[in-house]
């Protein structure tokens, strides 16, 4: 955008003498939109020549060339449909331009530059700016959901402010992180969604950005597009550009929306009577005394889901002002968002201000500045992996017969219920006793100074800073089991300094040879600081974290500092011949401090070819083909997310206890095995694509096929344990992804008062672990907490990353089969498993791969219908082929093995009269991790539906109102899925974890209804 503006201004500068020279000959006129607004910055070119001019602030132009009077003028501009007008000797031409619906004319932001879509050689997907507006969302990435092929947006946690993880063309990495690189107004930000550490939920990296501020989002997918980001490009790049001011009349825009969220799907659970019935049945089966001989003694019948959840409101206000003159433009916006969570005591608030300025300092210098300052506050409900402590989990397992309070007003302990696990917290006590708040102050700003050296050659120097101060307050009250009242405050500061120095050169030889080069040198440094203070044993809960000194036992304070640096040289050259043949080569050389001494620098080249058949003579005359392009690319990208200091021999401080008064003593030892050869993961990607645009761009089709080979996978390979070390970080192993992407955009009806657009996308990705670093060809993804205490993910050669792994059920035992069989202790009605290896017993060797956590196919369909002043749009999307490990069901569907409340459907348990029951007989036999708990998570979802009404101009006779619209919308209104848990879109473990696709007491998804108002002055 900025560079485009630069070019515009430069061109204006160069041609202004011509404009001044004569007013007598040539053609002049004015360009307006269909709404009657004048349009500045429209290029007016005399066809077949290099003569051109631009419209000024009032949409006026003057082409001072006599030849123009007999020629054809071409009017073109970003987001306007190009129009050709024969002058026929007229002196004045006034025309009305239509807003472009075709993306071909659109400018696409790519790494360190922009391109016209028709000139692209790489696979770049863009979200139409309108689509961002179609769905009122609090977080920007949600706008990507279901819209683009090859882009999977994973809601790891439906909590307000919860993390969203993005996979572009599948995951490449086992340990190195799979999140794309975000480039926000030119500032590269790697957002490690992180893993769920067992106590807290992962953070949303884009939480500080107001979606209303976003002008465009582009996703760079193939190597030709991403190699310019070198060691950070392997997972794709999401480029976010915010709104900038335009010369012209000052504009003020206001938007407010408010709504209500309710739980999308409540899990039907047993009521009090049914709970006691299944408990008594278990006792009879086991031959023990009945826990509830007299049901009338238990009068409580609580629906804990209702008690911990609520209908939660949200509202979001944005106000922006923009405008400026030819030399200085501004766009300033403010935002306030307040979203309550459907689980009580959770919510998200954001206040943000953004200032984007574009200043022409003189004919040669232009400054472009983008600043966002924000404060977010995220109050988190406890939805940890350590499920005994998770509010959602406890709300499911808690017996309905437990009252909330005792008669004296204190919390009732679930352990007093004869069949409850004493480790379960009273859900309300946990809800109120656990306070967790993450406050983030973020300043993200950068300035880009462009110096126009000579015609076509410019130097841009960008400096920027991303400073985040995060304060995490955590207080666990004394009513939470095991807590004496414990408080901690963690403060961290993460700052990233950026300097980029980019040289651009564009030239044209003759009429047909176009050539441009981008080259540069960049520097980015990240410094992290942290400090933690804590204390426990409080006499009262009233202080929360506000008086650490009141805790009688203080914890050890900790602090830390880390730093990493990335130095890069980059270059890209584009050559095109006659808008037919395109060649792009790019390369980046990255030097990262994280890499080992012997491997500091990595080189990441790419090349791409494109052939625009539509520009060839044989297609030029085919009027229904607007554009037809074939392209192919190959390139290498890297992934440097290997963590800091992993190549060094580190001596860490280690605490142990000695002394008569048992005090802490600090020792020092080497805690990791150094690897001076440590380097980036390398992905080689091949891509071939077809771009077809038909019927005057009414139908556009995009097809891509890609293959990605990721080698040198970062792997924590176990060194022999007899070294005392857990592992050695090395580059070993590989992952293969290949896939197919299809998208189609159609303008089905295009009339003045009736328009109908349809956009569809489909993608399929097949990811396989090709090689792991171990001779066994497999390793496990890490245990899930009690009561599962097992790993459900396996990383196994030939199978998708983090495939599910477990036993296979084989119906239920009947009366006589158990004795002398593979399960000698089983009784009639117990779960039966398959003896896969046929050794006559059920052992760990009887497990197999039971599916994959990533969908095999993703698809989306969105459509907009505009009739007169009404506009209706919807977004449907779905995923097919993924499974979810329903860890909740391991407790609430275990046929009462551990006394947890059960799902209603468990009433279909085995009895001698109900032999083909779905569930085993209630007993104390724990289930194994088996196919019973891996559920099909395929779904189709009506993600958004919105009805918008634009008031006609000058409604209510208010002249100063330039636009006014109101809308109502609903999100997640309908979802079709077989998944029995809260929501099939779930991954409790967060972003980069080998444990995947696990629903462990995850925050339930909401259904949202909202209404909004927009107006502009």
């Amino acid at each position, binding site marked *: 955008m900025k560079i485009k503006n630069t070019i515009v201004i430069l061109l204006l500068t160069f041609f202004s003498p011509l404009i001044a020279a004569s007013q007598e000959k040539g053609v002049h006129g004015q360009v307006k939109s269909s709404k009657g607004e004048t349009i500045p910055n429209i290029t007016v070119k005399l066809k077949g020549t290099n003569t051109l001019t631009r419209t000024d602030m009032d949409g006026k132009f003057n082409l001072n060339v006599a030849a123009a009077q007999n020629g054809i003028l071409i009017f073109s501009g970003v987001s306007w449909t190009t129009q050709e007008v024969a002058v026929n000797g007229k002196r004045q031409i006034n025309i009305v331009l239509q807003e472009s619906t075709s993306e071909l004319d659109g400018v696409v932001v790519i790494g360190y530059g922009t391109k016209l879509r028709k000139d692209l050689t790489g696979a770049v997907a863009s979200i139409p700016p309108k689509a961002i507006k179609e769905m009122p969302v609090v977080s920007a990435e949600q706008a990507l959901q279901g819209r683009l092929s090859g882009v999977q947006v994973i809601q790891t946690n439906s909590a307000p402010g919860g993390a969203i993880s993005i996979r572009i063309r599948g995951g490449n990495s086992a340990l190195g992180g799979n999140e794309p690189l975000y480039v926000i107004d030119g500032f590269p930000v790697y957002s490690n969604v992180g893993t769920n550490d067992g106590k807290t939920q992962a953070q949303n990296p884009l939480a500080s950005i107001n979606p209303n501020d976003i002008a465009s989002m582009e996703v760079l997918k193939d190597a030709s597009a991403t190699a310019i980001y070198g060691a950070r490009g392997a997972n794709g790049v999401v480029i976010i550009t915010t709104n900038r001011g335009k010369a012209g009349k000052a504009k003020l825009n206001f938007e407010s929306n408010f709504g209500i969220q309710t739980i999308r799907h409540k899990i039907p659970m047993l009521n009090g009577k049914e709970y006691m019935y299944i408990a008594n049945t278990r006792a009879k089966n086991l031959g023990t005394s009945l826990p509830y001989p007299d049901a009338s003694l238990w009068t409580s019948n609580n629906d804990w889901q209702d008690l911990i959840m609520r209908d939660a409101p949200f509202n979001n206000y944005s106000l922006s002002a923009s405008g400026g003159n030819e030399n200085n433009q501004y766009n300033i916006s403010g935002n306030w968002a307040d979203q309550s969570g459907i689980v009580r005591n959770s919510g998200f608030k954001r206040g943000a201000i953004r200032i984007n300025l574009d200043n022409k300092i003189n004919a040669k210098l232009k400054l472009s500045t983008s600043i966002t300052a924000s404060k977010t506050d995220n109050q988190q409900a406890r939805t940890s992996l350590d499920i005994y402590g998770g509010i959602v989990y406890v709300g499911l397992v808690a017996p309905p017969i437990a009252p909330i309070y005792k008669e004296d007003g204190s919390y009732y302990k679930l352990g007093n219920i004869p069949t409850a696990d004493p480790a379960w917290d009273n859900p309300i006590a946990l809800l109120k006793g656990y306070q967790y708040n993450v406050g983030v102050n973020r300043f993200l700003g950068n300035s880009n100074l462009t110096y126009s050296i000579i015609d076509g050659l410019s130097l841009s120097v960008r400096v920027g800073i991303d400073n985040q101060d995060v304060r995490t307050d955590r207080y666990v009250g004394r009513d939470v089991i095991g807590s004496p009242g414990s408080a901690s405050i963690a403060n961290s500061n993460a700052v990233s300094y950026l300097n980029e120095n980019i040289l651009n050169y564009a030239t044209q030889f003759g009429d047909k040879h176009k050539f441009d080069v981008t080259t540069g040198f960049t520097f980015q440094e990240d410094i992290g600081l942290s400090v933690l203070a804590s204390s426990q044993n409080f006499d009262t809960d009233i202080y929360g974290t506000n008086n650490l000194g009141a805790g009688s036992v203080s914890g050890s304070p900790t602090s830390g500092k880390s730093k990493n640096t990335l130095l890069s040289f980059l270059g890209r050259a584009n050559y095109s011949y006659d808008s037919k043949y395109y060649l792009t080569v790019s390369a980046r050389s990255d030097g990262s401090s994280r890499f080992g001494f012997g491997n500091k620098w990595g080189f990441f080249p790419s090349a791409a070819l494109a052939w625009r058949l539509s520009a060839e003579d044989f297609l030029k005359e085919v009027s229904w083909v607007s554009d037809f392009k074939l392209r192919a690319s190959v390139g290498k990208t890297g992934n440097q997310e290997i963590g800091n200091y992993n190549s060094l021999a580190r001596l860490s401080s280690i605490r142990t206890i000695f002394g008569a008064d048992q005090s802490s003593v600090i020792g020092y*030892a080497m805690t990791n095995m150094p690897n001076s050869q440590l380097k980036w993961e390398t992905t080689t990607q091949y891509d071939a694509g077809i771009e077809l645009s038909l019927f005057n761009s009414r139908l556009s089709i995009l097809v891509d096929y890609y293959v990605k080979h990721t080698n040198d996978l970062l792997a924590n390979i176990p060194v022999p344990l007899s070294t005392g070390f857990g592992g050695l970080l090395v580059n070993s192993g590989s992952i293969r992804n290949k896939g197919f992407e299809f998208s189609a955009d159609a303008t089905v009806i295009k009339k003045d008062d009736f328009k109908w657009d349809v956009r569809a996308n489909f993608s399929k990705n097949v990811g396989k672990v090709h090689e792991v670093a171990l001779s066994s060809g497999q390793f496990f993804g890490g245990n899930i907490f009690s009561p599962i205490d097992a790993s459900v993910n396996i990383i196994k050669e030939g199978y998708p990353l983090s495939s599910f792994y477990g036993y296979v059920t084989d119906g239920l035992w009947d009366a006589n089969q158990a004795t002398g069989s593979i399960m000698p202790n089983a009784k009639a009605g117990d779960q039966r498993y398959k003896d896969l290896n046929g050794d006559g017993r059920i052992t760990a060797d009887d497990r197999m791969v039971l599916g994959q956590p990533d969908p095999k196919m993703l698809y989306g369909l969105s459509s907009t219908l505009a009739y007169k002043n009404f506009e209706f749009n919807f977004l449907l999307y779905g995923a097919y082929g993924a499974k979810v490990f329903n860890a909740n069901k391991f407790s609430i569907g275990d046929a009462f093995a551990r006394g947890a409340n059960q799902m209603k459907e468990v009433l279909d348990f085995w009895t001698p009269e109900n032999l083909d029951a779905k569930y085993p007989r209630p007993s104390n036999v724990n289930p194994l991790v088996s196919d019973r708990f891996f559920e099909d998570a395929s779904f189709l979802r009506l993600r958004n539906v919105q009805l918008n009404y634009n008031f006609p101009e000058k409604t209510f006779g208010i002249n100063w109102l330039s636009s006014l619209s109101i809308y109502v919308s609903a999100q997640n209104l309908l979802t079709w899925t077989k998944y029995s848990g809260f929501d099939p879109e779930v991954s409790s473990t967060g972003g980069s974890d080998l444990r995947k696709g696990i629903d462990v007491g995850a925050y339930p998804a909401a259904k949202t209804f909202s209404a909004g108002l927009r107006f502009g002055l």
Partner: protein
Amino acid sequence: MEKNRFFLGKLFYSCIVGLLLLGSGCKDALQEEVFSFLSTENFYKTPADAEAAVVAAYAPFVSTDYYRYGYYNLTLLADDQVTIGRNPQFQAIDNFDIPADHPFVRGTWQQMYSCINRSNTGLARIPGIAMNEELKNELLAECYFIRAFNYFNLVRLFGAVPLTTDEINSADKVNSPKASVQQVYKQITDDLLKAESALPVTRAGVKVGRATKGAAKTLLADVYLTMENWAGAASKAKEVIDLNSNVLLDNFNSVFSVSNENNKEIIFSIQFDGVNIGNSLASYAHAGGTDNPNTGNGVQVWSVDQKSDMWLNWNLNDSRRTFSVYDKFINRAGNEISVYNTSRPFPAFGKYNAPNEVSGINCPFNPIVYRYADVLLIYAEALSQENGGPNAAALEALNQVKRRAYKRNINVISDIDYPAGSDKEAFRKLVLLERSYEFVVENRRIFDLMRTRQFPQIIKQLGKPTNPTATLFPIPLAEIETNKALSPADQNLGY
């Protein structure tokens, strides 16, 4: 050409601009700067560094996979007194049908070797540090003690294991071949003979809890006992007795009081404070969840095996019984609760009490490795074995332990004394029986069963679906897969 030169000039120029703006050079910028840890280059120079290296060698003892609970999960569940009624991962240990990739086995193995490698680091680095020679020798002796201690645990659980005595600090040193059981024992006894000579008799102040001369001698006595070197075991035990540093406390229960840790009976224990570093012994041993006043959360990972001799035949007059095992307890509200009416209907263990524990991981109790009763029983057994039958000293040592349990005067012949006149084998059985009562959930039982070759037959007889051929724990699969000096043939029998 002209243009090209211009171009490169500009590129250079832009690089310079970038460097000037940030004030750093290309080369230096990529050197990793460290702030929150030390690197090996600038360490091991001062007496304080030597001290820190030794402290670090002890540190793995308090890790999750070692004395915090992981090691106990392995050794307690596998014996005949402890069981668990749920969870396949734990039941695999309980049944002694353990997959070679079992995480508990892997974790414990690794922590033992972590102690060993850090001891090796100390032994390699401390001699080069200029410092007081006496203190230097004492620190080196601690390293020998820690190394021997861990090889002893390894050789008993796993048999022949990789034996490393050099510091491992780079990827080219990681593969160590297995040494024979004899070689491992040779290393252990060599190390302990060095350790016992340089370690101090007592510890005071900040060093309370660290290895002493008595600890090294007791360990060596236990090593000799396991090697069936009866004379060696008896004489080392006698040396401990003659140090006069330790006694039997009058009251069995007070040995385990959290307000009386490091008491006179304790020879070596692992130090926990329950605040910064706590363990789960109380939580894992007790029943009743948060309602049990003796723990923050009794989750009963270790339940009494109701088919065990200890549960079925233990004399109710033995004060150790009511203290060590129970099937009823008084809850926080003061009511008596039967364990059979809880969600985990098994008798539980009462030895480890942490009444002020705030959760199941804050037990401050110091897990006992050796206490004086052990020395007496080692002495009794070894002396009798050495002499072909118990002499008066052997019998007296055994009876002292029993008298305390039955609340008799420890040093006075009593009505419950074992009579003289047993033969060697019968006497040894009595000692082992006494040990089985004395050391319930103290991590001694499994080793007694193993060294007397009753394991795993004894748990097979309890009806557990035990691995049909294994007698030792499996060498972790990860070790076999990664250690290039090992092959699958190096795995223990039955895996």
